[in-house]
Each structure stands twice: as structure tokens, then as C-alpha cells.
């Protein structure tokens, strides 16, 4: 132990993984630092070792293979917002990343990997990734594996940030689907009090599939799809909107109750943002305003 923490900047993924697997506790992987530094500045986090993955070229960049969008973990928010492949294949993701707070300064440095691994309930990227049925890839001493984002959320032993490194995020486009993101920002500062991402499929006016993910209302994301199945087979109307509101509010188990708003209101707003995200998906030109 020394008074100051130590630091390493591995040059390759393999080097980083070897290093992490040889280290004991007190290790933190650092990418853009937008999450870590505020905690370090206030003494909330006092790592013994920083492993800086910022120099690992393999983790940088956005590409697409057919209908699949592939984003390296070090891709910064700013690059996602403006990238043509993201606009084409996953505009919902571009929209939710644009809704993030912190301004250009944070968007220029914060990475998608860091945002995912932070798993903060108020954050904006995760609802869209779950709605889009994204996959992620991670690497640790046991090797590389690809899993669904949903499975990652359910797995508390993934070791990301200390033993494992998130390497890539995959989203497959579904050309017949429409999408909407709605962030209800009711306080000063960056975060929403309830956020919703909706992915719908329609045939003409008829809703054929509906999938809504609500964030910021509970300490876990809330996926609502089966409970909304009764709305498929018909066109969307005001009554359907009221039903979405009711079902989605009800889907929130224990709502968060914090400086973003108290629990009763958060549950009600979960329903409202769900309806507005669905309306945004159906009426992209006019947008939600009710």
C-alpha cells in the first residue's frame, strides 16, 4: 500500500485483462472518468489502482455490418449523437443520447461503456438498449462472451469495471419498427424523473407489437410488453393511451422517492412518459405535447 493510488495504461485488451486478473481489490477501470472523477473528488471513491483503458484502440469506433450496428465501448456520446450509422440503424439510441445532460463537455468524453457499467437508474442509454434488445460483449480472464443486455442487467456477478471489460455494444435494426424516447425533466440538473423508450410495430394503423422500457422511476428498469399485448390488433387512440398510462404506472413495483420527485408522483409519471414515448413513436412529425 502506498499513500497514492497507482495507475496503469495497458495498450491492448489482452494486456488489460491479464492485469485485471492479477490484481486484488481496490481496482477501478477508468474510461472517460465522467462518472469516477466526481466520486474521487469528493472522497466517495478511493481506488488503490486505476486501470486506464483509454489507450486501447480496439475499443474505439462505430461500424455496421448489414443491419447490425456495432459500437466500441469507448465511443463517446457526441459521436453516437451525430453518426450516420446510428441515425440509420438505431435512431432511438441517438435520440436518448442527445437527451443526456452535462452538455457538450460531458458528451465529448463520456463513453457508452461507462454509462452502461455505471447502471445508474436515472441514466438515459439503458432504457433504449433494453427496448432495442441490444447485446453487449465483455471480456475477462475466462475469455470473450456476448450476451443480451437483458441478461447483463440480471447478472450481478459480471465483474465489469473491476475484473471484466465491456468491449462492444450491438443493436440490430428492425426496419418495420418505429420508436420514441421521452425524458421528463422536471428538476434543474441533468436527470429525468421518469424516462421511457418505446419500440412499436404497426401494419398500417394497426399496432402489432409494443415494447416499452421505463427508467428513472424505480431502481431497476421496468420492461412492459406482455402486459400491453391487449392493445395490439387495433389502432392507437386516446383510450389506448389511457390504458398504456394505467398499465405502465402499475408495472412500477417500488418507485424511487428522491430529489427527482416523490414515489407516488414518480409512479404516475412512469405511465405518462410511457404514453408520450408511444405517441412520439406513432406521430414522429408532430411529437408528443399532451
Amino acid at each position, binding site marked *: 500500500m*502506498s499513500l497514492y493510488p*497507482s495507475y496503469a495504461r495497458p495498450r491492448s485488451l489482452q*494486456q488489460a485483462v491479464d492485469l485485471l486478473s492479477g*490484481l486484488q481489490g481496490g481496482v477501478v477501470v477508468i474510461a472517460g*472518468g465522467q462518472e469516477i472523477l466526481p466520486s474521487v*473528488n469528493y472522497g466517495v471513491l478511493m481506488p488503490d*489502482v486505476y486501470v486506464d483503458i483509454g489507450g486501447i484502440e480496439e475499443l474505439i469506433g462505430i461500424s455496421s455490418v448489414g443491419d447490425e450496428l456495432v459500437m466500441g465501448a469507448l465511443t463517446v456520446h457526441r459521436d453516437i449523437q451525430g453518426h450516420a450509422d446510428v441515425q440509420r440503424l438505431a435512431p432511438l439510441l441517438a435520440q436518448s443520447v442527445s437527451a443526456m445532460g452535462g452538455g457538450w*463537455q460531458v458528451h*465529448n468524453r463520456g463513453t457508452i461503456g461507462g454509462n452502461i457499467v455505471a447502471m445508474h437508474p436515472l441514466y438515459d442509454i439503458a432504457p433504449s438498449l433494453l427496448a432495442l434488445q441490444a447485446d453487449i460483449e465483455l471480456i475477462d480472464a475466462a475469455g470473450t462472451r456476448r450476451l443480451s443486455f437483458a441478461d447483463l442487467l440480471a447478472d450481478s456477478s459480471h465483474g465489469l469495471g473491476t475484473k471484466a471489460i465491456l468491449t462492444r455494444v450491438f443493436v440490430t435494426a428492425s426496419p418495420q419498427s418505429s420508436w420514441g424516447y421521452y425524458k421528463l425533466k422536471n428538476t434543474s440538473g441533468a436527470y429525468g424523473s421518469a424516462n421511457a423508450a418505446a419500440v412499436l410495430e404497426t401494419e398500417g394503423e394497426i399496432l402489432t407489437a409494443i415494447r416499452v422500457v421505463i427508467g428513472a422511476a424505480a431502481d431497476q428498469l421496468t420492461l412492459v410488453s406482455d402486459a400491453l399485448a391487449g392493445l395490439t390488433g387495433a389502432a392507437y387512440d386516446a383510450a389506448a393511451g389511457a390504458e398504456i398510462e394505467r398499465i405502465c404506472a402499475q408495472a412500477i413495483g417500488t418507485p424511487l422517492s428522491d430529489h427527482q420527485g416523490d414515489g407516488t408522483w414518480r409512479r404516475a409519471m412512469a405511465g405518462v412518459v410511457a404514453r408520450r414515448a408511444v405517441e412520439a413513436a406513432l406521430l414522429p412529425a408532430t411529437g408528443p405535447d399532451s
Partner: protein
Amino acid sequence: MEDLLEQSALVQWRIDGELHELEVVPGASLLDVLREQVGKTGTHMGCRTGHCGACTVMIDGAVAKSCIAMAATLPRATITTIEGLTAADGTMHPIQQAFWDAAGLQCGFCAPGILLSTAELLQTNPAPNDAEIDAALAGTLCRCTGYQSIRRAVGEACVRMYPDAAGE
């Protein structure tokens, strides 16, 4: 692999045109190094959480909050601070002059965030509309709440930097 571990990191930065080679402690922010090791006190410490933007600098041409950038993670970088906007002979940058003339700032504490974000915006957008200005400046809080005059001063800066684009 443990031999990769260092107790300090050596960084090479071109700060406002001048080359510096510095030894930085892991965990230290770019803000602390700029203010305490380099003496660039124009970069202000406001919140240390990344919310206020008073510590804004440009890293390789893109704005960043220096209080939440870890110095060691920037082995080589070109850094522009608010002090670097001014020419060596003391002539103010057109953005600074526009803010001066249009009274765009009040107390001035947020100037690093407002002026450098304006600089990044105007690099690629010679005639931003209000929504584009707001998006570019959203990362900086003006505690004097002078947002209307800030918008006006950005407009004035556009006219000075791109006289041909004005009025479009």
C-alpha cells in the same frame, strides 16, 4: 503484468501553445494540475462534480470539464484554456471581444465554459440558431442567470467571425 503499475504518470501537453512535460498523480484532475502545477488559474473551480462548467477547457479541440478529466488519462494532448483564447500580444479573441462589447458576461466566473463552448460551436457552425446555441452552451451554468445576454453575445461573435454569413 503488475510492472505496468506506476505511482505517477508522465504527460506531455501543449497548453495554450506552450509545451509542458508534467508528472501527475493518479486521481488528480486536469483542473487541479492546470491550476496548481501550471498556474492557469483562469480555469475556475466551481463544483467538482461536472455540473457547472466553470472549469471548461478544450482537449484536442473539443470542450471538456477539467474537474472530471483525470490528468493521467491524457498522456499527450493539446489543451486550450480560457487564457489561450487571447493572442500572445494581448489582443482578445473575436469571441472575447464580442462578449466584452455586448456585455455578454456579468460576474464572469462561468466565462471558461461559455466562451470555449462558443468557440467549439462556431468552429463548425457559422450561423447557429437559438436552439443550437442553447444545446452548445447547456453544459455551463451562469449563476448570474444572464442567458439572454449570453445568446446575444454569441450572435455578435458570429457576425465578427463570419461577416459573410451574417443575416442569412
